[in-house]
């Protein structure tokens, strides 16, 4: 009967689908999500992901606070975001259902692990009765109640594993079921499990069994009548790998080391959600990366500035609170004019705030948050894969202009992933450090004697005859010697500011997507790119007079931005903060009063909400 059933199960082609896996933080949902994502990436789908997990490593089991989720949107057309609302929700327990059900699309598919809907779990989730028996639920969603606990136990009967070990395998049941449901071949996952558990063959065997059981369950049970197929997308040809933003950032800096043959030095201190950059870069030692885990945030940037003085291409990585601790050091890097890239993976603030949730609220700190007059270039990455290019570009600017540069990413980009087409190295931005090896003024070395662009030379220890001293005291505009002269100080403040303004020659003009002029211009920056572009596409396709400019460079701003803004009746600035870019624009373009669209709920923007807001303005 079962084979007959399988023969009759039809395949439905879908263009895109958004699936969210949710469960207890110990349920392995991040693993399930990333493995399922990999299968879709290998199958050639375009995709974007959004892991959403609590700050506690293990909140009490079954509690609402302990729910961890992973959302993936994949499709055969271009995917900009992990999707607004999931089409499919896979909920492993009542708490996960309760916290995530409101997001599921009406009519969406709800796959629940019915075995976890015990009295005690229902109580922990605050349910008075079993929601799976609720008539309204059945009416609004397509419910697939699968007792994954029991099916996992059955699959592992006689395995000799403890109950606890068996329980930990059930995420592979869900994964196997989803592989079947979305027509992904099982063999690569079987191999992947063997690799992952190479040191624990009994667990490899168990997880493979459970994965197969999940896959077979889809095929043989009479619960599912159809399976789905998402064809490969039309991504440009090339070799792709799925990358998170943090991994892409690390890869970007490692690429700088490889292409320049110069040491990239990362001095850093662990902080959520930036830690993975330090972790990943510590695996790139053979490519010329040196990593140093400092005793604190201050020492992280201090070691990087020291390495920069010594000639390395220096990087420090952090998140908001860490950037606050580094600001005194940034002042030193500005006045000493040493190249340095500071990556700030923004998270919900202030203070510890919402450390595992995303936010864009460090823009003004990046632009202005220093003592004294201390301008520096600021740029932001727009997608997980773009972190790779942004890292290289940040380093290019830092070494060319002899300045610290702040690169803003955020928790959403850092943990989210998308396919990354491995580029040809010759297409990448060129990082070209120049080291002074000879005296530059009458047989002497003047460390602050500038070129026409106001860039100072970089002479590093080990270079005979160019021994010199630099530091945090104001220096004479020529010799670099300590100077307390007021006129000299004013000149130096203005010179350093002008140098940063000159960076605009390396900032590409703002490009307008959609209508070049018209009713509403969407103006965004950083990690909101996908959602804002998605909304703009929708609106433009509807024939509305809407344009979209996404800013990569926040300082300096593109030369043509003022002119572009004038072409639209209204400017709407969507941000995951309370209006920081809008504030910055008001001070930069007097008379401009951009409208705001702000969400500060720890989540990325939703395309539908934003599009609706624009329609309201038209």
């Amino acid at each position, binding site marked *: 009967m079962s084979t007959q059933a399988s023969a009759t199960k039809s395949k439905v082609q879908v263009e895109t689908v958004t699936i969210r896996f949710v469960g207890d933080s110990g349920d392995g949902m991040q693993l399930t999500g990333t493995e399922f994502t990999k299968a879709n990436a290998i199958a050639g789908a375009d995709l974007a992901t959004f892991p959403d997990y609590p700050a506690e490593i293990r909140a009490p089991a079954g509690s609402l606070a302990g729910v961890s989720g992973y959302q993936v949107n994949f499709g055969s057309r271009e995917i900009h975001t992990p999707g607004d609302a999931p089409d499919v929700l896979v909920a492993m327990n009542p708490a996960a259902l309760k916290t995530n059900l409101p997001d599921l699309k009406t009519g969406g598919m709800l796959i629940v692990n019915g075995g976890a809907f015990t009295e005690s779990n229902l109580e922990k989730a605050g349910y008075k009765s079993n929601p799976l028996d609720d008539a309204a639920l059945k009416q609004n969603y397509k419910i697939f109640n699968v007792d994954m606990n029991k099916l996992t136990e059955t699959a592992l009967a006689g395995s000799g594993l403890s109950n606890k070990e068996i329980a930990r395998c059930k995420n592979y049941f869900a994964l196997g079921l989803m592989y079947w449901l979305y027509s992904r071949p099982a063999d690569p996952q079987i191999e992947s499990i063997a690799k992952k558990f190479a040191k624990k063959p009994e667990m490899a065997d168990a997880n493979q069994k459970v994965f197969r059981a999940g896959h077979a369950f889809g095929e043989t049970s009479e619960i599912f009548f159809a399976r789905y197929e998402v064809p490969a997308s039309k991504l440009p040809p090339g070799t792709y790998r799925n990358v998170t933003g943090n991994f892409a950032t690390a890869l970007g800096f490692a690429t700088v080391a490889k292409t320049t043959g*110069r*040491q990239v*030095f990362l*001095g850093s201190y662990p902080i959520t959600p930036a830690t993975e950059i330090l972790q990943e870069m510590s695996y790139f*030692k*053979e490519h010329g990366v*040196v990593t*140093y885990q*400092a*005793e*604190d945030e*201050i*020492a992280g940037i*201090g*070691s*990087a*500035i*020291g*390495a*920069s*003085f*010594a*000639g*390395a291409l*220096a990087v420090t990585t952090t998140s908001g609170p860490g950037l606050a601790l580094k600001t*005194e*050091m940034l002042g*030193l890097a500005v006045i*000493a004019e040493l190249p340095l890239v500071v990556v700030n993976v923004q998270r919900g603030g202030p203070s510890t705030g919402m450390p595992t949730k995303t936010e864009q609220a460090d823009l003004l700190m990046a632009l202005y948050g220093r003592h004294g007059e201390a301008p520096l270039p600021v740029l932001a990455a727009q997608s997980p894969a773009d972190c790779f290019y942004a890292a290289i570009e940040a380093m290019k600017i830092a070494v060319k202009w002899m300045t610290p540069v702040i690169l803003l990413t955020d928790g959403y980009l850092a943990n989210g992933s998308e396919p990354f087409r491995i580029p040809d190295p010759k297409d990448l931005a060129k990082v070209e*450090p120049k*080291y002074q*090896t000879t005296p530059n003024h009458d047989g002497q070395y003047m460390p602050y004697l500038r070129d026409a662009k106001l860039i100072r030379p970089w002479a*590093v*220890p*080990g*270079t*005979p*005859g*160019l*021994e*010199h*001293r*630099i*530091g*945090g*005291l104001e220096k004479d505009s020529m010799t670099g*010697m*300590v100077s307390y002269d007021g006129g000299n100080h004013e000149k130096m403040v203005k010179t350093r500011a002008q140098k940063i303004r000159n960076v605009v020659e390396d900032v590409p003009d703002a490009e307008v997507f959609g209508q070049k002029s018209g009713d509403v211009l969407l103006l965004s920056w950083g990690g909101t790119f996908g959602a804002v572009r998605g909304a703009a596409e929708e609106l433009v396709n509807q024939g509305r007079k809407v344009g979209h400019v996404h800013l990569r460079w926040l300082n300096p701003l593109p030369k043509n931005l003022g002119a572009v803004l004038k072409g639209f009746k209204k400017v709407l600035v969507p941000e995951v903060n309370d209006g920081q870019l809008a504030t910055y624009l008001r001070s930069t373009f007097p008379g401009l009063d951009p409208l705001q669209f702000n969400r500060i709920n720890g989540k990325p923007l939703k395309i539908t909400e934003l599009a609706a807001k624009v329609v309201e303005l038209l």
Partner: protein
Amino acid sequence: MSTNGQTVNTALPVYTKKDFESGIDPRWCPGCGDFSIINQVQKTLPSVGVKRENIVFVSGIGCSSRFPYYMNNYGMHTLHGRAPSFASGIKVSRPELMVWIVTGDGDALAIGGNHFIHAMRRNLDLKLLMFNNRIYGLTKGQVSPTSELYKKTKTTPHGSPDYPFNPPALALGAGATFVARTIDVEGAHMGGVIKAAAEHKGSVFVEVFQNCPVFNDGAYTFITEKATKADAQLRMEHGKPLLFGKDNKKGIRFNAKSAELEVVTIGQDGVTEADVLVHDAHRADPTIAFMLANLSEKAGFPTPIGVFRDVRKATADEITWEIIGKAKRARST
């Protein structure tokens, strides 16, 4: 000629003290102990076998931290307390450079305490000279982490309620592999300590008792006065018995029963020189060095000067590059 990251092997020039003078006249108060310290450093560097361009001086903030400006080497005058963090980055990035840190008691032990202990425990090859004047000089006279209990300063007009650090004990506790103490007015002794510090590979802590004639004058007369210094100073020399006093008749003995160090007099109660503890700076276990460092806390005991500890073990920069080398070799095979 050299470019980034690569120092070129050419013969070491013959240097004189003058080669290490930047040409800027030091701006410290007349009579400041810092003058004699820089004098000894500049005198010592010609003989350490390192090219001038491969030596870097890093400092924080405070009177002592002006030091790099007066040296004709590469130098960084950085932020208050943070010098060890910059120096660590330089050393990890370019282990072939000789890196000195010049700091004071406030800079190293108050605002920079965290960086200080971690630089010591990592055993990075960094040479830290801490000028201890037991006062904040540059801000004109506030209590420092080495000021004595009940010390009256501008911020403690009724006396300081805080116990001071014992700097060598702190450095030993943090894992420094070279720990020494010297005195600004004892030029020859200081020169010897600086030379030994230069030759040590690993984390170096040198405390220099440095008189601040303006804000804490006479802080060290107890150990520098001609009439009393023989009894007040315990000059530690590796391999020699710990003797002191006018005729070297007093000594330090390890009392096995009480597990304490005690002062004995040779010739009294049957004590001979053989009973006196022989100083072993190379002892891997820092316990005895720690006991010696704590002698100055006890009434009736002399204050040790010289090298407490000088132990060679792999440095963090050596280990870092050993790991990188392995990763590169694994890649190429």
